[in-house]
């Protein structure tokens, strides 16, 4: 597996940590999805028949375009205030990038690839842990999913297509939930939802 992929994922996740405004996050997600989609299309190469290629590319393009669009719409609708990441999260995200650079120097093996992919999701998981902004949490979920996508490249292309489709379902549900919560509680932060319910 190309080691630049997990590195690119980790760098983009670090950029998500540094970005304060939720409206900018979907663009970063689109960038990550495009890089990973392009790599997968390249690695499947000539192995695909024409119908398979059309299905695969359709799902990959949908995965790079639709979730960011859904999340952009959500970010604009909910209109949450800028969120600053805790300093530990910033240090952690750069630590992950440094560790990935170190791991990429190890001799290639399947276990190293799994470790690289798993590590590139670490920043996304940290974002889910600290963030109170639903848009940022959903972006982090998508980024974790995209970062693990190269693992699916081992299987037939249909798996990658189906995974993209099921993530679309998850995004649709997440959009619906965040929108409903905003309408019900009148709050755009996860802490606000909790406060409303406690009242």
């Amino acid at each position, binding site marked *: 597996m190309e080691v630049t992929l997990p590195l690119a994922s980790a760098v983009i996740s670090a950029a998500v940590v540094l970005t304060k405004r939720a409206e900018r996050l979907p663009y970063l997600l689109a960038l990550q999805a495009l890089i990973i989609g392009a790599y997968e299309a390249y690695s499947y190469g000539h192995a695909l028949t024409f119908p398979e290629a059309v299905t695969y590319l359709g799902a990959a393009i949908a995965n790079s375009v639709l979730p960011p669009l859904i999340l952009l719409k959500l970010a604009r609708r909910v209109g949450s205030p800028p969120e600053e990441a805790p300093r530990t999260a910033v240090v952690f995200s750069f630590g992950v990038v440094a560790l990935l650079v170190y791991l990429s120097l190890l001799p290639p*093996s*399947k*276990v190293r*690839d*799994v470790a690289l*992919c*798993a590590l590139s*999701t670490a920043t996304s*998981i940290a974002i*889910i842990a600290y963030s109170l902004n*639903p848009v940022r*949490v959903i972006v982090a*979920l998508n980024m*974790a*999913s995209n970062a*693990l996508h190269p*693992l*699916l490249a*081992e*299987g037939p292309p249909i*798996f990658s297509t*189906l*995974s993209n489709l*099921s*993530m679309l*379902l*998850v995004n*649709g*549900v*997440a959009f*619906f*939930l*965040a929108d*409903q*919560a905003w309408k*019900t*509680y009148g709050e755009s932060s*996860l802490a606000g*939802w*909790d406060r409303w*319910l406690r009242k």
Partner: protein
Amino acid sequence: MAQEIAFTLAAPLLSSLIALAAGRSERLHVPIVIAGTGITLLLSAALLLACVRHGVLSESSLMAECRVADAVVIVASNFIAFLAAIYNFGLNPFGRFSLGKYGSLFLLLVFCFNYMVLVRNALALFLLVEALIGVSVALVAHSPRSDAPEVAFRYLVVTTLSAFIVLAGAALLSASTGSYSLDQHPHLGGDGERLLALACILFIIGLGADIGFFPFHGWVPDTFPASTPIVNVLVCAEHAPLFVGLYMLLLPVRGTSYSDTISLTLATLGLAAIPISYTLAFRQRDPFRRIGYYAIGEYGSIVLALGISIADPACTPAWRAYMLNSSLMKAGILACLGLAANTWEALPRRWRELVSLSFIICSLSSVGIPPLSGFHVKLRYLLSVYTFAAERAGAWAALLLLAFLLSMTFIPLYFLVALLHELFLGRLENPGEKVSLREIAAVTTCVALAAAAVVLGLWPGLIFLE
């Protein structure tokens, strides 16, 4: 080609598309959901008969295989789904989604859990877990209650992350065995076995968080009160397939030197879950939260039995039967509670007594009182635990463990009796006068699940079919 497998999977998928196409019409929603689940139940019964006749059915293009025991799980889960569809007619199905989307999600869940039992590929299982999560969360979010979006969002985040852990486990499985197939690999050797054991730990964490067993249960107690009673009954059908999925993912470790480690890890998690969750259930005031914690305790027993069956294949029927009985009885208890919380005022006294009796039967079967189905499954389960513990720690330790497990039975018995008095027997006065077809349908669901406890108690061979 095993047509029975293809038909069992195609029926709910096609009905799901039809439900979506039918849109918002209430007149069409109920027949489509009942017909979709009913036809799937009939086809799953045909699948069981075909398995009994031919032994193993396999369909390589779908990466699916079906043995008699798998078919029994599918029939039991589809039976719960069919009764949930009848219950759906009896109670108010309206919520945040249009009826078309809701009906489609209902049937899509049936497709996902049927396929999960049959699939024999780790990557395909990951995809099914991911799809199942999306559908289950959407069904929880359908509830009109104000806490539903917050609870469902939490549920979504936890379970989606856990699906990624399953994917990482599948990649490690492939790194150690060279394929994503779920066959046993007794001659892997040092590094391969270590990787396989690590993959199994990831599967336990990933699917553990999806099922909601201890210590990954954080979201479970909140989802029971936040969901609609219909979804609560339907979701009982997915637990057995999820456990079967976990069993299939753990099977490759059987026969390796890490088999006992994985087995003991599961047994320890299960044993810890039982007292903790029963004690927490005891402290809850909301009946649905109480049942939520009770469910976590039941998962603990199932995880304990799963651990034992990973080490000793002879114990697998006991684990499977315990899991099926637990799903059926939990569905019965939740159906009765849903009626008590929603349409109780409209029911005449005789119907209230019928629901109360169903609750009593399901509760007694769930805790293992003879001559109901729970007694037989608990007896086999306790015998398996005794054999497993006696081989490893001696007869006295095994007896102590049995005494502990038996004493734990009294806690749920106590709070289920308290619920019976509080919600059912204490509210038999001032009954409604007339009963409509909808209420008859809802009560039928409770009665059918209680009848299942009696029938399986009289013919326990049905639930132990291998």
